[in-house]
């Protein structure tokens, strides 16, 4: 079996008495989409935050590309190859969509300490930024300020930024949220291809998307992983049906 890129072992995170992450172990293997589902407040975003480095776990280990990244800062983890999107879009709102992507590109090139050359005349930034926007279908809105984009467009821009970073693994927190069905179908097709570039840990409430995309699904309830398996295994799992999917039947 191939070695996992991302390997989380016995992760715990307490907020006071609340166990937001309760002894979670899961991994992400090359080429796969691993979906993380669970009811509101289950601790999905909290888990993503700990992997990305926005939150420090109370205990447990996170290994990425064979390295323990527990002590690494958020920017350090990004530079190592973890690209993430936020559940609530987090963009530089005054900048155009293009400049949001260019910021990621200059960070990837490791060259933010250049003081003279104007970025808008730097083809090594503008060209790939535009191409990245084309990939997610946002190129026609390239010059629009991020703050003026629709909710769905902001989600697309978040993905474009993660792509521009050339990440080796993606952590996507509800990328479909707020998109119309056409948008989420387009994104589903896109993510289906993206897994060949880098595996995806996908937090998503849209079950059509999850069942269409996931190679494996983990179900998180009250901070605990109650099941991990293929789409079929998860659909059949009685505990999952009871705790989570049961609501839908």
């Amino acid at each position, binding site marked *: 079996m191939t070695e996992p890129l991302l390997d989380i072992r016995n992760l715990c995170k307490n907020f006071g008495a609340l166990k937001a992450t309760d002894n979670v172990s899961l991994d992400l293997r090359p080429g796969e989409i691993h979906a993380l589902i669970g009811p509101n407040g289950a601790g999905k975003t909290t888990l993503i935050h700990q992997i990305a480095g926005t939150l420090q776990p109370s205990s447990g280990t996170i290994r990425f590309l064979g390295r323990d990244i527990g002590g690494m800062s958020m920017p350090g983890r990004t530079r190592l190859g973890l690209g993430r999107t936020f559940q609530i879009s987090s963009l530089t709102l005054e900048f155009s969509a293009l400049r949001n992507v260019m910021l990621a590109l200059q*960070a990837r090139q490791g060259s933010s300490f250049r003081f003279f050359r104007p*970025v808008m005349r730097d083809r090594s930034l503008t060209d790939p930024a535009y191409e990245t926007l084309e990939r997610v279908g946002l190129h026609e809105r390239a010059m629009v*300020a991020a703050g003026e984009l629709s909710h769905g467009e902001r989600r697309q821009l978040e993905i474009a930024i993660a792509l521009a970073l050339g990440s080796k693994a993606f952590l996507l927190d509800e990328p479909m949220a707020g998109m119309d069905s056409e948008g989420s179908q387009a994104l589903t097709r896109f993510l289906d291809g993206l897994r060949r570039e880098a595996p995806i840990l996908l937090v998503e409430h849209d079950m059509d998307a999850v069942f269409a995309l996931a190679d494996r699904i983990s179900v998180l309830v009250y901070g605990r992983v109650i099941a991990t398996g293929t789409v079929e295994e998860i659909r059949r799992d009685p505990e999952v049906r009871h705790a989570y999917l049961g609501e839908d039947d």
Partner: protein
Amino acid sequence: MRQHLRRETLVNAGLAVLLLAAPAIAAMAGEPFYVTLATRMAILALAAVGLNFVLGLGGLVSFGHAAFFGIGGYAAGILATHAFNQEPFPFGLSGTNQMLVIWLAALIASGIVALLIGLVSLRTSGVYFIMITLAFAQMIYYFAISWPAYGGEDGLSIYVRNAFPGVNTLDPLSFFLICYVLLMIVLAFFATLRNSRFGAALQAARQNPVRLASVGVEPFRIRLVAFVISGMITGLAGALFADLNRFVSPSMLSWHMSGELIVLIILGGTGRLFGPVAGAILYILFEYFLGGITERWQLFLGLILLAVVLFARGGLIGLLAGKVRHD
């Protein structure tokens, strides 16, 4: 978008011409006082351009920039005094009355202090940042007051204005031109930096530091470099201010000075290229005309400031040229 850009360019050009033409005409009319007034505008504008790097682009409200202004001033005063009295420094260094050397000393000294203050203060944010920068500046202020070697509370006189190769610096218009040219050079640097990769990162650190960190850039490092650049420029302005007044006093280091710089940026337009220039012109005019009518001119200034904050967030540049637009 283009139109806004053009309009702002026109406004900026207008201000640049105004600031140059007024003292030239005053000099021809034999009114050196107005030349001095314009020189003060140029120097305060320069100091505020320095602050505008962190305040306008980086969103960092430093309430301690008087520290750099004063350090630049003392660098000029101390070097000039040693040169005048022919007292050498330790390590075989000597004083000088050459502005170019003095500016270099002012840039280096304020840069080092900015680095030290930035290393501590930039670990905080919001009100804590305001308070820590204020506290550092006050420490330096009290140090200057209680240090008798360079005048203590009484300040330090520069007996002859320092020299610049090929220019008679004692001529008010010539000295104005030196300050004006420096201001224009630094404004060009500001405009360049703002559009550069570093400028993009600095503005991103203001708009959304989490976003900047999540693409892999530490906001702290970007802010620290900006803070050092900012302090150096305000320090340079301090050296010029010392030469203008031929006097350095601890008041250059006081919190009033820090407040004044913030006020004139807000008056002119925060983050705008010519905001500090517009602000300095307005501020000095208020001081001169309102100050001529009443001792309490700062009360009226406060009311005007309130009006700006409530009704004209973009300051004078915002009123004249519209909102900021990015590409």
